[in-house]
């Protein structure tokens, strides 16, 4: 039985008359891979935003490895080991792909040297054992970005921007990674190649991953557990095979025909 590393206990969040989260209770086991599904406005992104520090829940407690992270700002949560990618890739647009990664590892270098002014870009980052540039190039290769490394991110195609966004999040070697709609905007042919590659890297690193997704095939193929959101509540929390047969999930989120298609695909595969 895996260790529980993240617990969200009794989270509630409202924006005026809109309830974005209601009585959310979730335990996340180390090494698991969880899909978060739900219609737009169901509360998936609010959930992610609360855990990663962008929003503060009205009530409730979030604990990570025994530490209460409920009121911490995003950067402290990142430093503790929870990182996220974004639905719309958040990149440093005037810099190249390589530089984007250099900044990411550079931030870690600064943290390890306690922000000393004399920190050198050429020095080895103690806990990573390599220099910033070496780590950045390593990431470029790992994520298949070699041909884009010296191009300004402004001009990169959407799928590449998504991968870079995720690569940057992974640079912090997070214990838990949240992916916000990793395949949205990515073409059908590229979708699975991209997810195969990313999930492999994540698995090799031993990172626990939760991803928000609308594409049920992606959810089916990569998750071992599904959390279904509806009107701020979690209406199903189970293995995808079971969750995607749940009445309410079918009624509010997936739809019979899509579920059948996805389940059939899986049993064929």
């Amino acid at each position, binding site marked *: 039985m895996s260790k529980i590393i993240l617990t969200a206990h009794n989270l509630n969040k409202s924006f005026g008359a809109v309830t974005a989260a209601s009585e959310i209770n979730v335990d996340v086991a180390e090494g698991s891979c969880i899909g978060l599904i739900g219609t737009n406005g169901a509360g998936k992104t609010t959930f992610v935003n609360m855990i990663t520090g*962008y929003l503060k829940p009205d009530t409730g407690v979030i604990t990570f490895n025994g530490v209460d992270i409920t009121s911490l700002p995003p950067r402290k949560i990142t430093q503790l080991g929870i990182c996220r990618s*974004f*639905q*719309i890739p*958040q990149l440093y647009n005037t810099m190249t792909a390589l530089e984007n990664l250099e900044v990411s590892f550079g931030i870690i270098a600064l943290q390890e040297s306690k922000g000393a002014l004399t920190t050198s870009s050429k020095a080895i980052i103690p806990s990573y054992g390599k220099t910033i540039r070496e780590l950045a190039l390593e990431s470029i290769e790992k994520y298949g970005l070699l041909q884009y490394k010296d191009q300004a991110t402004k001009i990169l195609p959407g799928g590449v921007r998504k991968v870079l966004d995720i690569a940057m999040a992974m640079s912090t070697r997070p214990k838990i990674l949240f992916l916000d709609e990793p395949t949205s905007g990515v073409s059908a042919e590229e979708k699975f190649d991209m997810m195969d590659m990313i999930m492999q890297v994540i698995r090799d690193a031993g990172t626990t991953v939760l991803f928000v997704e609308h594409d049920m095939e992606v959810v089916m193929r990569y998750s071992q557990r599904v959390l279904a959101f509806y009107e701020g509540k979690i209406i199903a929390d189970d293995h995808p095979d079971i969750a995607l047969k749940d009445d309410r999930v079918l009624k509010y989120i997936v739809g019979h025909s899509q579920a059948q298609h996805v389940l059939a695909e899986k049993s064929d595969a």
Partner: protein
Amino acid sequence: MSNLLIVLIDGINYAAWLFISAVGLTLIYGVMRVLNVAHASFYAFGCYVAVTLAGFWFSHNYPPHLSFFALFGASFVAGFIVGWILERFLLRYQYAKDEVVILLITYAVFLILDDVLKLIWGVDPYYASDPYELLGNFSVGEMIYPNYYLLMVGAALILGLGLTYMLKMTRSGKLLVSVIHDREISSAMGINVGRFFSLTFSFGCALAAIAGGITTPTISVVPGLGVDVIVLSFAVVVTGGLGSLPGTALAAIIMGVVRSFCVHYVPQLELFVIFSVMALVLVFRPRGLFSLAEARKI
């Protein structure tokens, strides 16, 4: 408590002046997101036009009581025309640039216009106190005040209420509010954003000029008088919230009254009290008293 009344009357008068001089700035920013440093030059331009016309008017013995219309009208028209030219031939091509860059461009224009005014009118001071004296005085208790105070307050009220009416009640006003909120969507809806920009900028400059014109009878017109005005206008507009008309009014009143208190009781603090109010407000409300809403980023 006649002391209090004295302070209040002076305060309201100064507040009226602050409002009149700042309102053009906030209007232009609200609609176009342009912080027009050249506002100072238009104010000065309005002063010079008014003072020149006053000299002409009174030396030709035209009816003195019509001088106000002539002075203010001339300032307004002159400011409108020059503002229109500036927008049409320079500013129009810069809207895609960053807010701060546009600000630097208007700063450059201010530097240029300030010297142009010197070239045209020279460096000697001009006076036009006739309209001021014309109106006589009124008294409150033992204190005598110039009726020009009333004109100033009246002008501020007309300006404030007039603009508010225009924005809320007229069709063009409502279209303008739409442009203020989102120029891209307004454009997609068929609103001629370019024409609104042109008119707003010209109008804003005209307001700066008429503010100058209204102030002229109370001061001596010398080179560089825009320099002090612009920082005060900035302070009022930023404190009130960039682009907010009620904000500018409220900020003007607060600053006018606070400054008046300082002048009467602690004269040493006078000059910096306005900026202290601005700094204080920004500490508690980083975007000013009333601010335009901001969209979610992620």
